[in-house]
């Protein structure tokens, strides 16, 4: 018979619930992840597994539209420790800077102290539509009011201030010829150059140190431009709401794109674009139907491959900056996918097991692999790509993600930011 006392309850609820919010959260998510892992073994689509365990969540009381890691100095060896977020659809939108503590702070029993801490924030007029770090200290923010602002993060006293502002960089000229701001939907930086695109179909080229736009292409697109990226130092690539990719050479004075690529037929709007960090001709885009398209801009006007992915709008696509065999996408349907083409083919059991398939592996590993990127091999992608959904219980949209080194940060409409600092563990 047990001694006097409260009796051997399995776990007094009080104990578990007195924990810090993030910890109890983590515990719950871990349980969910484990369930999934048990359920969905095998197949090329693996459910969220061990990687989920190191995800830290923080509810921030504002819907997050953008998350970005601060870039690391060239020689840095540490993982990134600072990121910025922008909010949308609030009466009072904010740009916030967060720090994630030292990686060494992993407590006993694997408890993780790395919950993001708010360092500073500042009001932002309008929804944050896009956001990019210009350098270590400056962040360029695109607003739904059409204004583009450069904020400076003062690291000595942890404050943010507006450093430079281009009012109504994007605007409509309506029937009464009064100017109304038009949402600036995308921004990309290549210090000191800043390119912005907007709902007004305009492309602006700014320099961080100049008050006026260096160049403006009015009516660059008859529909909404959704995103922009640098192809080379002088070439940019835009995607629009009728399924087109346009390449613009900024050296030419002509206000015409130098090349147009498009999805055939159904004109599905494209929402995001990213360029392969090493092979500049490979471009990935994400569409309204959640489809991932891989393009080779050297050849053809159509995508090399169309990969069925999310069930709703794909909001962002990112190649891993230093490990471009990995790609990350997030979507309105509340999922975040990790696409991995780095599966080591030579280790796979060859023709003995897989019959016909192995020949494709074989041919790739011997002939093509060193030359052609895994992303462009048009046929066997299905066999060779491993896709992981990093969010098992999805509900609301994942609006933004960013990856740097082993770290992933993403933000959702459920007003939470998530940090995973051991992505490849």
């Amino acid at each position, binding site marked *: 018979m047990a001694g006097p006392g409260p*009796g051997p309850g399995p776990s007094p609820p009080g104990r578990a619930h007195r924990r810090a919010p993030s910890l109890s959260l983590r515990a719950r998510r871990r349980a969910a992840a484990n369930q999934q892992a048990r359920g969905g073994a095998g197949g090329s689509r693996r459910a969220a597994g061990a990687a989920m365990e190191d995800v830290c969540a923080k*509810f921030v009381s504002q*819907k997050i539209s953008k998350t970005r890691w601060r870039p690391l100095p060239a020689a840095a060896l540490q993982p990134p420790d600072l990121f910025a977020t922008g909010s949308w659809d609030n009466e009072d939108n904010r740009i916030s800077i967060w720090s994630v503590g030292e990686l060494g702070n992993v407590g006993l029993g694997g408890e993780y102290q790395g919950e993001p801490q708010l360092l500073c924030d500042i009001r932002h007029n309008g929804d944050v539509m896009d956001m990019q770090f210009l350098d270590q200290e400056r962040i360029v923010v695109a607003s739904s009011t059409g204004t583009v602002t450069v904020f400076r993060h003062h690291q000595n006293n942890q404050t943010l201030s507006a450093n430079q502002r281009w009012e109504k960089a994007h605007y409509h000229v309506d029937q009464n010829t009064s100017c109304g701001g038009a949402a600036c939907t995308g921004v990309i930086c290549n210090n000191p150059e800043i390119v912005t695109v907007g709902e007004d*179909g305009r492309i602006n080229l700014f320099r961080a140190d100049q008050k006026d736009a260096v160049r403006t292409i009015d009516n660059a697109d*008859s529909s*909404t431009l959704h995103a922009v990226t640098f192809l080379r130092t002088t070439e940019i690539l835009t995607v629009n709401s009728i399924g087109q990719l346009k390449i613009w050479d900024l050296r030419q004075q002509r206000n015409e794109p130098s090349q147009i690529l498009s999805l055939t037929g159904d*004109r599905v709007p494209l929402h995001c674009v990213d360029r392969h960090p090493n092979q500049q001709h490979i471009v990935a885009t994400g569409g309204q139907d959640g489809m991932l398209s891989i393009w080779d801009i050297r050849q053809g006007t159509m995508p090399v491959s169309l990969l069925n992915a999310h069930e709703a*709008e794909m909001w962002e696509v990112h190649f891993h900056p230093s490990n471009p065999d990995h790609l990350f996408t997030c979507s309105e349907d509340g999922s975040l996918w990790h696409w991995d083409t780095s599966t080591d083919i030579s280790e796979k059991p060859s023709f003995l097991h897989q019959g016909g398939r192995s020949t494709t592996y074989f041919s790739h590993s011997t002939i093509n692999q060193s030359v052609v990127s895994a992303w462009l091999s048009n046929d066997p992608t299905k066999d060779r790509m491993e896709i992981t959904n990093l969010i098992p219980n999805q509900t609301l949209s994942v609006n933004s993600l960013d990856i740097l080194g082993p770290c992933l940060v993403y933000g959702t409409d459920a007003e939470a930011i998530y940090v995973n600092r051991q992505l490849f563990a």
Partner: protein
Amino acid sequence: MEELDAEPPLMVVPGADPSARQLCFAWGPAEVLVCETLFGRRGSGEGGPSSSRVFVVRRDQDIYIQTLRKLFNESHGIFVGLQRSEEELAGKSRKAQLVQVSKNYRSVIRACMEDMHQAAISTRDPALHSQYSTQVSILSAMELIWNLCEILFVEAAAAGPLLLRLLDWVRLHVCDVDNMVREVLSSENPSKHELFWNVVDVFVLQGRMDEARHLLSKEASANPASVNMYKILDDLMKKMPVPSLGNTQTLTEMELKWQHWHEECQRYLQDGTFASNSHMESICKILLGDEDAILEKKELMTTWYHFLVTRLLYSHPTVKPMELRFYAQSSMDLFLGGESSPEPLDTILMAAFEFEMHQVIKECSIALSNWWFVAHLTDLLDHCKLLQSHNLYFGSNMREFLLLEYASGLFSHHSLWQLGVDYFDHCPEYGRVYLELHIERIPLNTEQKALKVLRICEQRQMHEQVRSICKIMAMKALRNNRLGSALSWSIRAKDAAFATLISDRFLKDYCERGCFSDLDLIDNLGPSMLLSDRLTFLGKYREFHRLYGEKRFSEAAKLLLMLMTAHIAPCSFWMTLLTDALPLLEQKEVIFSAEQTYELMRCLEDLTAGKSDKQKFQNDDVETMKVEMLRLALARNLARVIVKEGTLEGS
């Protein structure tokens, strides 16, 4: 009409003065608009309507508290998870699952409470501080009620385990004494501390026997003279039987053991073993369940429900759920002793002990300033299949009614509306209608937001709303002179009438400027071109221009003719088309065949004949000249083609 359960609370609208100006109001989905009127103002006519103001009065105030947004967002995930988990498991594992869900909800409340507590500590503004503190106490009361409902309704603990759960509940929520315990335990010599016996009493009252014994052993070692007395009390406390969670013993077994133990305690008390130490004597009385002895420690228990649980522990450890109501009522009466009347929290807890679930929900709805609590609790209880029999005389059932209220509140918030969608989805009867009405009222300031709203509507096949949103966006684009965007939106909505309107704008622009704008769009219409006749014409007409530009004249000519003969082109545009034919007719080589030329001539004659004489006179000279030139060109072309075709056939 049912009677009112409570006086409706009076709400003062700051700034509005009903004595000076009469107020009028209009109902909104989750708020009321109140405005000042000019009606019934006596005397003071001067000054006119100096400041007629409109006030927005909101019912669900808590929605606007920043920290609570965490609660709403996190619990939304749990809610959706619960709806999805529906009925997968049966019996025991289903119950375990529901208890887990309930615990998750509570942990969210706790997390939110901690945040709020932090905020209260860190703020320097006294007004804010008191506001946060109020919220902390409200959240803590919510958690207290929820926890009790979890024990009694969700888990439905049986006699035996029920008491253990209630003990946990009391230990978790009666925290006032924690500070005292900490102070005594951290002092250099706990047994010499003036509050030492209070702490021992607290442990005994909460059934924390091990801790109490630990403290007593320290005291015993300091008093070698009375070590025997301590040993006996320690032994009693050690031997006290407790209900087990597993199936290791039956209730009768337990009751038998308990009876023995009780008699043993009785013996020691009667033979005056503890007479020399009043503290120990009172502990022994408590162990015996002596109500007066327990009530003496009122200050240490602070609440009547603590008293109830202590009383049950030492006099009715195997209390059955249905017997709770008697002990609860008498405990409350004894504890309050007629000094103070029960507060809303007491009434709610009492209703729970009486297993009056509906009463709990009703009292909570009245007492709390948000719908969050009742909506989620009711939903959980409904999933436990406890609420089925109850129907309201309005709306659907209670679960749905409360969820609708809560979700409507969310929709009135500028940012939380997205959460509301999932709640409406799980209201089978009226959810859809509510969603339809609310979603149309979301302000659409950017295309991205419009896309998010559209996605919600498309996923639920709400065609009417999809059309309306696309139309709003198309109109906006049109007003901003963004024809391309406007066309894209109307194509998405499959809105033929609007596509026609925009196509006309394109054609008008073309007629005025002589060139097309937005070529990238028109060239890529694809199958969507078939949406409206006018759009088809626009696409085909542009194709004609492209063919012409590429010097593929015969194809261009064929297309041009087809546009008229197949009646794709609107009649008003025929003259432009015929004029476009002029340069083709004047090319060096013959392009139109004889048959095609005849067709063209017929088109021209149809066009001129169709117009009444009156119209003809009104037309200026340019028009007449155009017709004449066309006739001439057609005749010349016919001559050339007859020669050419004749020659070819002859050769």
